[in-house]
């Protein structure tokens, strides 16, 4: 490696160390003076809403907000010129409390959350959405399903109302009328905003469950989920600070590993910060996390050269940002490992990570990459129409990586043997051999050899298909029974 690159990478590591370690290990206390909240109109809100929507008011009464004197107006107040400002009982308010609004007090959490895969959950898929949500489904499905997890682009109509096609919505990548992305209430149920509730695995279940991201099921089927279920009352979920290994040791929840503080590792509201791999893509990549001067973030494939600090880069939304820091995949793995070692030995942790990486690499090289190459060949030769999902193989390919492939990879990442294989890679294999390849050959017709079989031959992991005489007892036909 040339010395220049060495020093660049050294600077990166140094910078990231500062980035990771500069924050305190405990949950950030609000630094504002209490005189900044307690809006004078708040009492009137509470008095009336206690009658008109008593559940909501009671939830707020039970909250830390109420205990600290933070009232309705402190969060809902708006400026007249705000796009979604409305007049309500003599006050100018907004229905939507965006991350930017929460960030008036919770600055650190807001800054961490902006640019995270959670905050970008809608932006990332916005241009892909129509092909599935609109063509295969319909607008009603996008509003009631896709957008409820990914978030909607909230539209304020000219009469000040929120377009019901885009609201109500608490999707985590919601694009708010004030331009901020995300929805704190996606995890922190309003209006109680309970710490304990957000630390529970159930906080994630609304979206991280089901065929394409069965993280709830995977967690429950793992040893982590098993000990959590057995020792839930020892989790200290209500604690003011919640550092793994210090404030609780019974079991981890989703938050523990992906966001929580552990030992010297600080907590973060950037949920993807500790993720090495992209697992919900046709082919998984190790990823750099690029952090820009303006706080925006971007994932970059780890097989490309890392951008240097101070360089300008074009971003997904077309704007240009100056690189402030780059977290390498290795560095992100180190951060995650710091959580593991609160309960596990280093060797154990590294061994597990090796097993996980091996599954991802197997998926990539044996199925993800060849399937992608075969699809690319079919499109290039015009053997498939460019429109997505108008041919059966497009559903087959979609499910191969988006559902079954994601399940297998997630299963391995969180230690559910069942999801890694039976719900995951077994189905990937079955799909690949019994549906995808036959459909690809049918679509390729006379080009099947060059478009499909050439890819398999070059891959080298499918040679067992060339040995049709290998009878196995697994199907109930031991080899000796056949003469």
């Amino acid at each position: 490696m040339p010395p220049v690159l060495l020093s660049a990478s050294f600077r990166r590591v140094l910078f990231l160390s500062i980035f990771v370690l500069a924050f305190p290990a405990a949950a950030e206390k609000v630094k504002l003076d209490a005189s900044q909240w307690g809006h004078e109109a708040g009492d009137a809100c509470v008095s009336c809403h206690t009658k008109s929507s008593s559940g909501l008011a009671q939830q707020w009464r039970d909250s830390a907000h109420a205990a600290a004197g933070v009232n309705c107006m402190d969060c809902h107040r708006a400026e007249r010129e705000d796009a979604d400002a409305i007049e309500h009982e003599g006050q100018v308010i907004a229905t939507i409390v965006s991350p930017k609004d929460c960030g008036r007090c919770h600055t650190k959490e807001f800054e961490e959350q902006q640019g995270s895969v959670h905050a970008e959950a809608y932006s990332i898929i916005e241009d892909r959405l129509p092909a599935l949500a609109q063509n295969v489904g319909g607008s009603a499905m996008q509003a009631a399903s896709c957008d409820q997890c990914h978030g909607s682009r909230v539209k304020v109509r000219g009469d000040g109302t929120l377009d019901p096609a885009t609201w109500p919505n608490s999707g985590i990548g919601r694009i708010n009328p004030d331009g901020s992305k995300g929805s704190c209430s996606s995890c922190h149920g309003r209006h109680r905003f309970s710490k304990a509730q957000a630390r529970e695995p159930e906080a994630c279940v609304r979206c991280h469950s089901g065929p394409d991201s069965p993280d709830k099921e995977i967690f429950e089927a793992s040893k982590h989920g098993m000990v959590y279920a057995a020792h839930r009352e020892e989790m200290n979920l209500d604690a003011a600070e919640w550092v793994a290994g210090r404030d609780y040791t019974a079991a981890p929840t989703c938050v523990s590993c992906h966001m929580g503080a552990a030992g010297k590792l600080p907590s973060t509201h950037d949920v993807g910060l500790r993720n090495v791999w992209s697992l919900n893509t046709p082919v998984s990549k190790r990823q750099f996390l690029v952090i820009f001067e303006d706080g925006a973030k971007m994932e970059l494939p780890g097989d490309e050269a890392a951008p240097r600090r101070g360089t300008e880069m074009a971003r997904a939304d077309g704007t240009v940002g100056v690189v402030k820091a780059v977290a390498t995949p290795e560095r992100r793995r180190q951060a995650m490992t710091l959580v593991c070692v609160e309960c596990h030995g280093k060797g154990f942790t590294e061994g597990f990570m090796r097993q996980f990486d091996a599954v991802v690499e197997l998926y990539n090289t044996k199925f993800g990459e060849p399937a992608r190459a075969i699809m690319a060949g079919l499109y290039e030769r015009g053997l498939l129409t460019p429109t997505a999902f108008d041919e059966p193989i497009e559903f087959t390919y979609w499910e191969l990586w988006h559902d079954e492939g994601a399940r297998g990879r997630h299963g391995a990442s969180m230690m559910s043997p069942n999801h890694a294989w039976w719900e995951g890679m077994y189905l990937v294999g079955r799909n690949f051999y019994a549906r995808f390849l036959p459909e690809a050959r049918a679509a390729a017709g006379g080009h099947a050899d060059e478009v499909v079989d050439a890819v398999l031959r070059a891959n080298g992991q499918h040679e067992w298909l060339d040995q049709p005489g290998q009878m196995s007892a697994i199907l109930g036909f031991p080899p000796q029974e056949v003469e």
Partner: protein
Amino acid sequence: MGGLRAPLFITRHVLIALVVGGVGGVLFMAFLIEFDHYTSSDAFCTTCHSMTYADQDFRQTVHYNSASGVRASCGDCHVSEGVFAATWDHAVGSKDLFKQLFGPDYDDPVINALHLPEAAFAARRWFRARDSATCKRCHTLEAIQGKRADTAAIHREETDGKSCIDCHYNLVHRKVPDESTFKRDAWNRMIEEEFALEPGTAERLMGEH
């Protein structure tokens, strides 16, 4: 007999003038009452095509179709009670007729929708200035029960210093934001989208008059 004689200044002419004036006065008052009554009716208001848009929205609301069979007319809400106040309102309201004849083409649904917010703001100011007097013709605060458990309590305990219109706007006609948060640009874009017009058409149409 002399006691029955009329005073000397009651001449025949004076007598005739009194009778004619009295009867005329009665007839004039009767005319005003009838006039106010007629000009407060939905039928009269919607003789201007421009008013049919407001009427269409009104017909979708509970003020038109109530379970009890009570049906409000335009005048029940928009014309004050009492013959003098009603006459005054109609006299002031004749400016609308003037604008209908010489102003923008309010009969055009686009023009109508573009100018609606200012009309709504004026109507709300009118209600507020009269402490929602026309609402109270039918609604008595103390008697409001509502269907939900807390409606009565809210009207009893949360209405100090408030007039009906402060909370109950956008009740009958097309929804228009409060003047304090109204954004003309957003409104214009919404109307353009609704009528499939090129962006900027709204400003051009409004600038024509």
